[in-house]
C-alpha cells in the first residue's frame, strides 16, 4: 500500500514531511552557564525576566520565544495559523496567557515534560493533514514556578534528594511549514503509551519515566523496521542520570541497544559541577536542547537523523500524596535532513 500514513501499532508516517523552518530558545541564567550557553538564542539575566511574578516571567519567556522563532522567517504572529503549546503549570496557564497576547489560534497541550514532542507531532499532523500550512509548536518551564507548584517554597531550607532533577528554566518554539522549503523535516512520530511500573518517588522521576522511554523507542524501531543505528542520535528528554542509566539496562533487556548513539537532554544540559543532582528536567529541558544545540548540529550536517524521545511523568502533588504511582509517557519524533 503506497502512502501508508500509519505504521505498526503506534507510529505515524508523514506523507509530505513538514519542514522545521525556524526555531528559537530562551533559557534561564543557570542553563546559560551550562555547557551549551552559546547555542541558545538568549539567556535571561534573572528569573523574574522584568516581571513581578515567576508565573508572569514564564508567560513572557514563552511568548518572546515564539515571537523570536517567528521573526527569524520575517513572519509576524498573525501569519501563523495554529499554535500548539504547553507547559507544566496547573491549567497550562503560561501557554494560554502567552496565546492571549499573540492572538494565534491555539491548542493547549499537557504531557508534562513530554510536551515538546507531543506539540511537534500534533502541529505536524495538522500540516500533513492538509489543514494548515504554517504552525508553531512551543513549550516552556521555569524552575521557580515548578518548584512552588510541585515542591517547596523557594527560600525553604530543605535538602533536595540525591536522585532529584533540576527543572530547566527555558522555552523552545519551532515553526513548521508545508514541505516546500529546505531544512530538517519531521518524518515520523511514535505516540507513546502510558507505562507505570509502580514507581512512587516524585523525587526520582527518571526511574518512573525510563520504562516508557524504552517502550516507545522499541515500538518506534519495530513499527518503522529500523535499527538503532539508523539514527545518528537517539536522545531522550529528561531522564537524568538515574533514568538514563536505567533506560540503558532496559535497552539490553529489550534487545535494542542504541549506544553509543544514545544520550539524554537532562544529562547534557548542565555541567556536573552545577549541583543539579541527577540533571535537568521539565518541558524546557529537551525544548532548549532541541532548539539550541541539536537543531544547530542538524543544520551544520553533523547530525542527519535525530530521534527525539521526550519523556513525561504524569503525576500531580495530589496523586503523589494519595500514594498513587507515577504514570510515565514518552513520545518520539524523528527529524531528518532529507
Amino acid at each position: 500500500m503506497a502512502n501508508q500514513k500509519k505504521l505498526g501499532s503506534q507510529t505515524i508516517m508523514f506523507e509530505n514531511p513538514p519542514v522545521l523552518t525556524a526555531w528559537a530558545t530562551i533559557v534561564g541564567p543557570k542553563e546559560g552557564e551550562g555547557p551549551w550557553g552559546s547555542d541558545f538564542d538568549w539567556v535571561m539575566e534573572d528569573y523574574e525576566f522584568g516581571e513581578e511574578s515567576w508565573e508572569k516571567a514564564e508567560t513572557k519567556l514563552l511568548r518572546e520565544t515564539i515571537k523570536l522563532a517567528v521573526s527569524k522567517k520575517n513572519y509576524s504572529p498573525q501569519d501563523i495559523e495554529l499554535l500548539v503549546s504547553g507547559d507544566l503549570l496547573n491549567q497550562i496557564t503560561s501557554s494560554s496567557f502567552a496565546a492571549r497576547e499573540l492572538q494565534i489560534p491555539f491548542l493547549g497541550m499537557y504531557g508534562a515534560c513530554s510536551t515538546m514532542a507531543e506539540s511537534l507531532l500534533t502541529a505536524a499532523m495538522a500540516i500533513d493533514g492538509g489543514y494548515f500550512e504554517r504552525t508553531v509548536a512551543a513549550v516552556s518551564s521555569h524552575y521557580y514556578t515548578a518548584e512552588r507548584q510541585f515542591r517547596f517554597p523557594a527560600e525553604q531550607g530543605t535538602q533536595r534528594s540525591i536522585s532529584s532533577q533540576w527543572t530547566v528554566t527555558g522555552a523552545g518554539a519551532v515553526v513548521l511549514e508545508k514541505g516546500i522549503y529546505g531544512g530538517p523535516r519531521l518524518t515520523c512520530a511514535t505516540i507513546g503509551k502510558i507505562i507505570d511500573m509502580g514507581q512512587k518517588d516524585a523525587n526520582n522521576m527518571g526511574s518512573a519515566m525510563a520504562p516508557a522511554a524504552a517502550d516507545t523507542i522499541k515500538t518506534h524501531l519495530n513499527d518503522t523496521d529500523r535499527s538503532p543505528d539508523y539514527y545518528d542520535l537517539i536522545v531522550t528528554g529528561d531522564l537524568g542520570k538515574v533514568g538514563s542509566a536505567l533506560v540503558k539496562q532496559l535497552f539490553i533487556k529489550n534487545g535494542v541497544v542504541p549506544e553509543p548513539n544514545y544520550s539524554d537532554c537532562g544529562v547534557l544540559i548542565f555541567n556536573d559541577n552545577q549541583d543539579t543532582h541527577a540533571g535537568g528536567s521539565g518541558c524546557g529541558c529537551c525544548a532548549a536542547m532541541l532548539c539550541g544545540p541539536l537543531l544547530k548540529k542538524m543544520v551544520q550536517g553533523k547530525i542527519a537523523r535525530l530521534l527525539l524521545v521526550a519523556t513525561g511523568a504524569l503525576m500531580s502533588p495530589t496523586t503523589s500524596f494519595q500514594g498513587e504511582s507515577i504514570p510515565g509517557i514518552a513520545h518520539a519524533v524523528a527529524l531528518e535532513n532529507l
Partner: protein
Amino acid sequence: MNTSADQLKKIEAQEYDDLVNQTKPKPTVLKNCIWAFVIGGLICTLGQIILNFFMGQGLSKLDAGSATSVVMIFLAALFTGLGWYDVLGKHAGAGSIVPITGFANAIVASAMEYKREGYIFGVGARIFSVAGPTLVFGFAIAVVIGLIKVVFS
C-alpha cells in the same frame, strides 16, 4: 487468567524496583549526619550564648529562654529574607530544620512565596503550608500528654 496477569505485573514491578534501587545513587548518610551535627550544634551553641547573656543581664531562666527564642526566630527570619537560610539548609539538612530556626524559616519562606497571591488567600491562607503539620501534631501531642498528666497525678 486475570489474576496470573496481575501477578506477572506485580513481579515485573518488583524486578524493576530492585533495578532502580541498584541504580540510584546512595544518599550520603554519614556526610549528612556530620553536617547536621555540626551546624545544628552551632545553632544551639549560639542559642546558649544568647541565653547566658540574658541571664547575665538579670533575667530569670524562664524569661531568658523566651527572649532567646525571640532572638533566634528573628535571626532565622532575617536570614530567610536575605536568601541565606536555604543555602544553609541545603548542607545542614536536619541540623537547620530541627531547631526553632527551622520552624521560623518554614513560615517566613511560605509567607514570602505566597505574598503574590495577596494577603488573605496568599500569605494568610498558606503561611503554615509547610509548618502546619508541626503545629497540628504538636498541639495534639500536648493535649494527650496533658490528659496523661491529669489522669496520673
